[in-house]
């Protein structure tokens, strides 16, 4: 068994895998991805998977997300069909007084060149005929879409493996030590040494950080989703709150709860989600729910991603964030530039862990 690597990536969700794949385009040997379970057992396996740009604040963060969305068509051509669809995104509002907020959002985006339209009631109904006719309006952006998260992680992994990246599953990392210029990564199945360590543990980043004496302030926020039986295609856009997948299933939900690592689904939130479904699209009342699932978001304390070098420990890197599906192509690209070239083509300074000092 090889135990010495250039770079070890801890965490095999979409973020760890995107970094692995993008690294493999530049150097093919000496990279190991370790996961305590099997890929997709973390947040990447229980997500809505919108590739979502509009409504993100501050507008600089929307801009960052936009660059990632722009990489998707290109990514699909490189790693294979990940069922990315640029449907356009619709955020409906049901109260006329929200129009003002929507307009201000559009204004703040105009300055950075992201076009959002604020739609009238008639325009929303024309775009999405099955929506509740009581809708007051919506914000709309062409850049939003969605992707199949299972295919995304699987394709990243297959491409990375083809390029020589090694993987170790069911192998929990229990400690990390730094000796001179080397890290020693202690795992359930053995010890590894390496020059660079990348922490891509999602919700578990705080725990991983502790192993190297670094404070990574991410909190857990649970989200619950209802999945319907396959329905004929009838939802045209990615609506904030729901989307229809290629196989016809509608994924519904946008809930936030603090429940630590508890990944149960609960009847109260399922009911509220069902209410939301019918409030947005009355016809969904007749649709059958096949299952409910929940996932835990890793949300950094100020809501923005934590990406880049950890200045206090040489050759230690971190990449954790909410909206990792949206951001994975860009984060993989920039982290690779950082490791290989020492600098990034797009500034990641606003997302440095330094800001929490």
């Amino acid at each position, binding site marked *: 068994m090889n135990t010495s690597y250039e770079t070890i990536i801890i965490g095999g969700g979409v973020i760890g895998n995107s970094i692995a794949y993008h690294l493999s385009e530049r150097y093919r040997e000496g990279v190991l991805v370790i996961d305590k*379970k*099997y*890929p*997709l*057992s973390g947040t990447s*396996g229980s997500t809505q998977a919108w590739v979502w740009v509009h*409504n993100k*604040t*501050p*507008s600089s963060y929307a801009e960052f997300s936009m660059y990632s969305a722009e990489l998707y068509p290109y990514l699909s051509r490189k790693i294979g069909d990940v069922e990315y669809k640029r449907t356009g995104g619709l*955020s*409906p*509002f049901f109260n006329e007084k*929200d129009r003002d*907020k*929507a307009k*201000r*959002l559009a*204004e*703040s985006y105009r300055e950075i060149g992201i076009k959002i339209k604020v739609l009238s009631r008639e325009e929303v109904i024309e775009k999405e005929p099955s929506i509740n006719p009581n809708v007051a309006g919506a*914000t709309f952006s062409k850049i939003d879409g969605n992707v199949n998260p*299972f295919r995304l992680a*699987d394709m990243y992994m297959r491409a990375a493996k083809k390029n020589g990246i090694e*993987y170790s*599953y*069911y192998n929990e990392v229990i400690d990390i030590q730094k000796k001179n210029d080397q890290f020693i990564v202690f795992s359930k199945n053995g010890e590894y040494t390496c020059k660079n360590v990348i922490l891509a543990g999602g919700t578990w980043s705080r725990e991983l950080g502790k192993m190297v004496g670094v404070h990574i302030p991410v909190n857990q926020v649970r989200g619950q989703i*209802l999945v*319907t*039986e396959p329905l004929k295609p009838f939802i045209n856009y990615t609506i*904030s*709150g729901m989307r229809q997948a290629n196989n016809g299933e509608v994924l519904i*939900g*946008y*809930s*936030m*709860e603090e429940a630590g690592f508890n990944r149960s*689904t609960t*009847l*109260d*939130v*399922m*009911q*509220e*989600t*069902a*209410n*939301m*479904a*019918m*409030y947005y699209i009355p016809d*969904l*009342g*007749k*649709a*059958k*729910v*096949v*299952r*409910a*699932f929940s996932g835990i978001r890793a949300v950094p304390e100020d809501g923005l991603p934590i990406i880049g070098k950890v200045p206090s420990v040489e050759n230690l890197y971190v990449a954790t964030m909410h909206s990792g599906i949206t951001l994975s192509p860009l984060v993989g690209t920039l982290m690779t530039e950082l490791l290989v070239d020492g600098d990034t083509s797009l500034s990641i300074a606003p997302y440095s862990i330094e800001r929490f000092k």
Partner: protein
Amino acid sequence: MDKDTIICRCEELSFEEIEEVICLGAESFDDIKRITRCGMGPCQAKICADLVSKMIHEQTGKIYEEIPMPRMRMPVSPISIETLSTNSQHFSTVKSVLDEVELEDGKVR
């Protein structure tokens, strides 16, 4: 079993397709589910759960009784959204995306 034998009827997955994921290191039903959609259909793994456990047992030598069962998902048997709904239009945990946009001095933060 024949390579073409269908293991998951709802998602039409063959023995061969599931075998491949086990070869890649999957050790539980849920590992296979997330890669292939096995068990995500209307029957909620009622038909394929045991077949898949047997496959994992046979291919990896893991003790059959120790292979984790699929995580059953509410509502186990499909029910309509209408039945689940309480008709309330008051939302607390479920949010609208625009709720999260905050204004400061009349400008987006």
